[in-house]
């Protein structure tokens, strides 16, 4: 059996809104296993980034969280800020979408990568040595000079590599990566994905990859969790879910992705836009856009249930898998 590192149980998050609290994450449960990459898939408003933000403990002020986020035997939801600080970076680290915004423009890359080491009172020469080693590991060329440079002297791809180095510095067991390649060009994206894969394998750490990009997921995710309007749709093994989706929404996503290596027709579009969590419809949140919707879907919220081979789906009428 795989070793569960992170267990999310019935997580719900309410954010204050102009018309009262909005439930942006609703009753979400899944696990992340050691040494595996779990992909969290969703479109805008799906709650995927909020879920990741809750794990690292950076939710905006006023957010009300219920449920449990179990890290080993500690509950991150009830943990004090002081305990969480100790965890952040050392046990759980985060890679953000926009390295330009996440890196401090006034500090050298070396200083930012080594920040967590200095916090641990590692000696100056040791910090320098480790930083250069980390920059080498993530493939930043000429690390001896590059570590003293500022983010603006780095290209987008190199900045993202520096972010990865920063995340690795604390030797975390779990890396949360929120759209780590979305802002990058395709040729750079391929290299960063290969880097993340290599690092994850070398270190045996777990990764929770948050993305709307199914093509990225198909390449790196061992397990995928599909979310829509703050709720779970489907959980299963990455390749299996993307090859044979059980939930009509996953299926619609999969057929919408145009192929490069073969010519595909433009997919039959779904009507409407992704549901806004503030106006989540009754019953299944996907029913207004679902071709298979029946009366039951309009009134009864589908619960997550096991179907075949470790696959879980929240649909009254799932596809055979």
């Amino acid at each position, binding site marked *: 059996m795989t070793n569960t590192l992170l267990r999310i149980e019935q997580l719900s998050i309410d954010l204050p809104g102009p018309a009262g609290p909005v439930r942006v994450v609703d009753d979400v449960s899944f696990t992340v296993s050691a040494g595996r990459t779990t992909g969290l898939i969703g*479109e805008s408003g799906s709650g995927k980034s909020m879920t990741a933000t809750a794990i690292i403990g950076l939710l905006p002020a006023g957010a009300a969280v219920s449920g449990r986020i179990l890290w080993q035997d500690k509950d991150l939801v009830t943990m004090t800020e002081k305990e969480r600080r100790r965890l952040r970076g050392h046990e759980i680290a985060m890679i953000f979408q926009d390295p330009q915004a996440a890196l401090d423009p006034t500090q050298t890359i070396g200083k930012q990568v080594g920040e967590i080491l200095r916090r641990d009172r590692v000696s100056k020469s040791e910090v320098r040595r480790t930083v250069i080693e980390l920059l080498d590991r993530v493939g930043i060329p000429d690390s001896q000079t590059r570590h003293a440079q500022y983010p603006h002297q780095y290209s987008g791809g190199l900045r993202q590599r520096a972010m990865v180095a920063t995340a690795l510095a604390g030797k975390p067991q779990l890396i949360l990566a929120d759209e780590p390649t979305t802002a990058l060009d*395709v040729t750079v994206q391929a290299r960063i994905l290969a880097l993340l894969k290599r690092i994850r394998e070398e270190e045996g750490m777990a990764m929770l990859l948050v993305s709307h990009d199914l093509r990225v997921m198909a*390449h790196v995710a061992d397990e995928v969790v599909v979310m829509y309007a703050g709720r779970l749709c489907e959980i299963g093994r990455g390749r299996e879910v*993307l090859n044979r989706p059980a939930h009509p929404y996953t299926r619609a996503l999969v057929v919408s*992705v145009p192929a490069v290596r073969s010519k595909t027709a433009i997919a039959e579009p779904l009507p409407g836009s992704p549901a806004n969590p503030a106006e989540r419809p009754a019953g299944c949140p996907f029913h207004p856009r679902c071709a298979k919707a029946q009366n039951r879907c309009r009134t009864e919220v589908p619960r997550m249930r096991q179907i075949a081979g470790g696959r879980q789906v929240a649909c009254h009428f799932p596809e055979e898998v």
Partner: protein
Amino acid sequence: MTPLIEAMDLVVNFHSRREAKRGGKPNAVDGVSFAVHPDETLAVVGESGSGKTTVARCVVGLQAAQRGTILFEGAPVGRVSRRPAATRRAIQMVFQDPTASLNPRMTVRSIIAEVWRTHRSVAPTDRSWDDAIVELLADVGLDASVASRRAPALSGGQCQRVSIARALALQPRLLVCDEAVSALDVSVQSQILRLLANLRATRKLAILFITHDLGVVRQIADRVAVMHRGRLVETATANEIFDQPSHPYTKTLLDAALDLEGA
């Protein structure tokens, strides 16, 4: 057949005067030539910094080229302010960020009415503007109720439809789409691609489609121009580009692109 639009040897640089004296940075667009025929979709693909957006801005006239000519139906055209009204109308642009390209304080109705006030010659005369607006919104798949709403109250896909409706209000011949579907959710992206494909067929529109997404290009383009560091490295039919790319850079791009299949 005369091309609808033809770019010949376009050169654009963003040097300051001092940089130019020193020899300067490489040109953002460096000797680019291409043609778009009536009724054709030409995709310009490339990575960030390749110059594809600058080319689009030159075609629309938002950016002056230091060298080179753009011909519209055989006649040279310059910056948008120096173009005759008919040419300005004929070339319309749809931008990447659907919410940022619509004035948040204006209703959809007034956004569309504004272009008719500027270009009286295409303003409807046989029916009321309100009726014409409702009809136009229906053409892009929007409900009549959208007319009285403002951009912040619309979804990304709806905003992009409004942008397209605004362009169509001027009865353009060429639509320049700069990453027009890149900011949209995948489930909405195919709606807009379908819409563009339909409009192209029903309105005989030519489309210059700027994007980095090769999958989308394969679905909608007749021909593809590949840009790299300001230069056009290869222009060919979509089938040739995807099945027998000849330039090494095109091959690199295709190899790097991810697919759902074969992962």
